C-alpha cells in the first residue's frame, strides 16, 4: 500500500541508493535488502540520495543505524544527500547530524569519498 521505491546504481567506486516515496515500518525491509546485497558484494561506500523521499519514520532511520558501523569498519561510510527539509528535521530531532554527513547535492557526497581515497 505504501508507495516506496529503492534503486541501486554504481557511480565509480560508490554505490548510490535512490529512495523514493514513503519509508516506514512496512517498506524499511526493502531498504534492508539493498544494504544486505551491498554487504554481500563488499560494497561499503554508500550515498543515499533522498531527492524523491517524501516521508521517513524511525523504522527507516533504524536501517541506517544498523548498517553504518559495518560500512565504517570496512573503510566505507553511509552519506546522505538531497534531503528535503521535512525529512532532514526528523534526522535532526534524533541527533543524526553528529554521526552522519549530509550533503546538499549527490556529487558533493561522491567527491567526499573521492577525497578520502
Amino acid at each position: 500500500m505504501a508507495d516506496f521505491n529503492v534503486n541501486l546504481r554504481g557511480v565509480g567506486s560508490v554505490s548510490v541508493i535512490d529512495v523514493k516515496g514513503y519509508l516506514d515500518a512496512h517498506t524499511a525491509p526493502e531498504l534492508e535488502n539493498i544494504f544486505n546485497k551491498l554487504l554481500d558484494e563488499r560494497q561499503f561506500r554508500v550515498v543515499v540520495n533522498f531527492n524523491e523521499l517524501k516521508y521517513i519514520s524511525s523504522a527507516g532511520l533504524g536501517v541506517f543505524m544498523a548498517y553504518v558501523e559495518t560500512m565504517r569498519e570496512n573503510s566505507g561510510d553511509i552519506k546522505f544527500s538531497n534531503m528535503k527539509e521535512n525529512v532532514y528535521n526528523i534526522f535532526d530531532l534524533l541527533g543524526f547530524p553528529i554521526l552522519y554527513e549530509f550533503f546538499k547535492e549527490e556529487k558533493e557526497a561522491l567527491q567526499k569519498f573521492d577525497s578520502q581515497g
Partner: protein
Amino acid sequence: MNSSNKIFEKELLIKSTTDNLALIREFTKSAAEESGFSDETIGKIILAVDEACTNIIKHAYKFSPDGNIFISIKFEESKFIITITDEGNHFDPARVPEPDLIHYYKQKRAGGLGVFLIKKLMDEVKYSTLTGNKNQVILVKYLS
C-alpha cells in the same frame, strides 16, 4: 468561522499490519487538515501516530496481523486528541530507555526511537492500561 471552533470526532478500526500504516497516515492527515494545522505540524502529528501504531504492531501484537487497532481523533476547543487503543501485550514505554545514538551506533541497532520521537512531536502523551487487557495511548496537539 474560525477553524478552531470546529468540533468533530472520527474513528478508524484497523488490523495490526504494517501495510495499514499508509491508511493510518491518510486518516490522520485529513483530520489534521480539517482542524487547520500548518503543514509542518500536520507532518509531526502524522509521524507521531505512525510511530505509536508501529509500536503497537511490533510490541503489543508482535507482528501478528489479526490484532485490532482502534484510532479515534477528536478536535474541540483547539485541542486535537488522538486516542489509540489495542488489545495486545502491555507495552510500557517507561521501560524504553531514552535513545543514545552513540550507543546504538556501537551496538548496530536502533530501538526506542519511536517513543522518543512521539514525545518530541506532540504536546502531551499519555499511556495507560484499561480494563479488559486493553492498552491506550492518548496524543494531544494544541492548535496555537
